């Protein structure tokens, strides 16, 4: 894994999207962010809207490149990471 910053697309859905105030964004992650949990910690520090959205981080689910992922999942090869509440379809 190279430490050079590369853009990752972040997607937000449902009330996570409403609280963050945007549906998606491209970000360049600083070095040292290896997992989903690291990314959440970094996002929380980006502003009050992120802090509010991720206040109850324990209920938020994630997907890496369209596949459900766990908090300890590595993100070094991810192109798109999504954050959303537990799903309620069907």
């Amino acid at each position, binding site marked *: 894994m190279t430490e050079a910053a590369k853009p990752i697309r972040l*997607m937000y859905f449902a009330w996570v999207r409403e609280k963050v105030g945007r549906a998606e964004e491209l970000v360049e992650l600083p070095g040292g962010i290896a997992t989903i949990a690291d990314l959440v910690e970094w996002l929380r520090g980006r502003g009050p809207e992120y802090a509010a959205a991720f206040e109850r981080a324990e209920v938020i689910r994630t997907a890496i490149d369209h596949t459900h992922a766990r908090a300890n999942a590595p993100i070094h090869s991810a192109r798109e990471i999504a954050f959303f509440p537990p799903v309620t379809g*069907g």
Partner: protein
Amino acid sequence: MSVRVQADDFDIGAEVKALTGGRSDIGAVVTFTGTVRGDTPDHPITSMTLEHYPGMTEAELARVEAEANDRWPLLDSLIVHRYGTLKPGDNIVLVITASAHRQAAFEAAEFLMDYLKSRAPFWKKEEGPDGSGRWVDARECDEKAVSRWDKTRTLAAPDDAI
């Protein structure tokens, strides 16, 4: 085997006909249709809006369908899920399973719905007469419903919080 995600309504009879037409190997067809529930006593609902994650939704439904086809001897299957703003009574989701015998079709249809409800990236928002919106909470019983298939589970569950 196919999945569709669409804003438009679906016609259950036409979908069954398209799936079974011209075939004589199918002996059992099970359909499940989910519809929008209307008011509850303390909770008037005028509409429901389904948001989803284009790209992942189709991928996830296809994974769930492939899993069902691995577990049961299905001859065909279809999942149709709607998104957008729906009214009470409107169709939301259709699952069709076809097999030579009923048990596989029944079980696979139930499995598809249980898995879809816990995995497919859809979120419901209920709108009231005053224009207020409220995101529907995930129900614990839906998680329990999916866990009964755990013994031979092969798809990772999205149950780990961050």
